[in-house]
């Protein structure tokens, strides 16, 4: 018969789809090659043994524990992330606030300036503007007690 040829081809062919064709067209039908493989019944004994031993096992307690632990870890991770976000947000807020405070001082907005150290005479500059844009202000006390010099300067970024 040609069985040896099919066996040879089956061994050398690297592709499973060709092997599957050889199985279907020859090995599954040929009475001689049918003896090459074991029958399902012969394997069933082993599988029956496996079936009996797995029936006694209960996986649920372990699975439940695993699910609970994963949920806890997830929750803890989410909590620690929240803390980090809160800390970063707080720091940013402090930075923005202090920057704003410093900036405001430079511009003298709403600040009371004493003239020649006299408490009674005070000048309040609310806002300084050059060409429609906010500008910086500087006060100079001159030798003349009745005179106050206000220097206005454009912001550098403008």
């Amino acid at each position, binding site marked *: 018969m040609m069985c040896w040829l099919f066996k040879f081809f089956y061994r050398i062919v690297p592709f499973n789809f060709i092997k599957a064709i050889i199985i279907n067209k020859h090995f599954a039908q040929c009475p001689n090659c049918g003896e090459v493989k074991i029958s399902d019944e012969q394997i069933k004994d082993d599988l029956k043994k496996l079936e009996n*031993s797995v029936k006694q096992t209960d996986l649920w307690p372990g*699975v439940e524990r695993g*699910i609970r632990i994963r949920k806890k870890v997830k929750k803890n991770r989410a909590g620690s992330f929240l803390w980090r976000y809160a800390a970063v947000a707080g720091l940013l807020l402090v930075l923005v606030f202090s920057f704003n405070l410093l900036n405001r001082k430079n511009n003298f907005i709403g600040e009371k300036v004493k003239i020649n150290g006299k408490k009674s005479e005070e000048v309040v500059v609310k806002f300084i503007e050059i060409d429609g844009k906010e500008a910086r202000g500087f006060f100079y006390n001159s030798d003349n007690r009745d005179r106050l010099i206000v220097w206005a300067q454009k912001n550098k970024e403008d």
Partner: protein
Amino acid sequence: MDEKKIVQLCLKGKNEAYEMLVKKYQSNVLSIAYAITSNMEDARDIAQESFIKAYKKLDGFSQESSFKNWILSITYNTGIDLLRKRKTILNFIKKSKKEDMDPQYEKYNTVEGSEIFSPALKKLKPRERAALLLQIDLNYKTKEIGKILNCNESTVRVHIFNAKKKLKKILSVTERSIK
């Protein structure tokens, strides 16, 4: 209760519903895990890990397909991953020439320490054993086996044919030696 409803209850966080699914399919999952590892301890670990993974990914599960096929596929992949990791560890140990120091490492060859499968069945490749189990014990068709093992029908046919051929060869050699 309908399986879809059970899955929906699980998604709402009802652990009792998931318990029903675990109890329904645990023997199938354990069998396939054992077919891959040939070791009951490992099989139990893989089966538990697979159910936990499935619970985590449950929102991505397409409810048109069967939960059984899905969980078996997860189990197969988890088992193969475990074997692959162990192979890497073994190779590393062998390279470091430490294999003689601790004989315990030998048990990672997975065929040791089992009494359920006959020596002949243990000599098959994990993929071949899994395909055989799915076909003979769980009565799956080649197409479905392909989906679970993540390969095409032809490959499944070849795995099953090779497995049966190897078994026949081993058994006939054993019979001859007994005579």
